[in-house]
């Protein structure tokens, strides 16, 4: 099953729509609730990052019988130092983002903890792509 969603810069009202829809789909497919939570928490954090730190982008989800593959690709400033960004507590979030309850620098490390495979690629001035995979069993 293939799904695509568009996320828009600064659109916090709709942040989480893609994750919410994926949650419904996985529930219908009777995926273990603990696994569903890991998937949607990771996807939601990635979605919020694309809205908060970049200029929006795309969420691409592919669901198989035994796993889910997720790509969140944005156009944005990119991440100059990915290893630094992955550290707990590191954040460059703007005040508007902090007002929305984000900017603790916990998103990327939490995504890493929740998924089975994660790959972040980024080019400064172009954008960032976060690829994640979670096995259902």
């Amino acid at each position: 099953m293939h799904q695509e969603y568009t996320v828009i810069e600064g659109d916090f009202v709709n942040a989480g729509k893609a994750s919410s829809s994926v949650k419904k789909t996985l529930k219908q497919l009777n995926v273990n609730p603990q696994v569903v939570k890991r998937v949607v928490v990771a996807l939601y954090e990635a979605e919020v990052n694309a809205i908060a730190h970049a200029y929006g982008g795309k969420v691409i989800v592919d669901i198989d019988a035994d796993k889910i593959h997720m790509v969140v690709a944005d156009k944005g400033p990119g991440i100059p130092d990915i290893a630094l960004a992955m550290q707990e507590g590191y954040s460059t979030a703007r005040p508007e983002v902090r007002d929305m309850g984000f900017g603790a620098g916990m998103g990327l490390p939490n995504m890493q903890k929740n998924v089975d495979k994660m790959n972040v690629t980024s080019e400064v001035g172009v954008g960032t792509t976060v690829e994640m995979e979670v096995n259902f069993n």
Partner: protein
Amino acid sequence: MTLKEIVDKLGATVGLGADKLDREEEYCFASDLMSDVLTLKDTPVLVTGLCNVQTIRTCDMANLEVVIFVRGKRPTEDMVELADENDMILICTPYSMFKTCGILYGAGMKPLY
């Protein structure tokens, strides 16, 4: 402790789910940081001063169903609508975060950590 007891102790009003106050809860977690809430493996009652749509979305992702908003913050219609879709219960207290947590802790609600 039942949600009814919590509402009474906090001088609170119920923004959504007034028919579900018989529900028993044991654990509480207080935070205004949604990424912090997203690290929880359990599903405690959330005490927060952050009152916007992202609070509700975060609870949806984290499977949290009960939220206590402190300092007189009231959920907007959009928030209530989204929370209703997820069968949530929204409670509003005029008390501060500190006072709310003190009362709940004193009354026997347990921390996660």
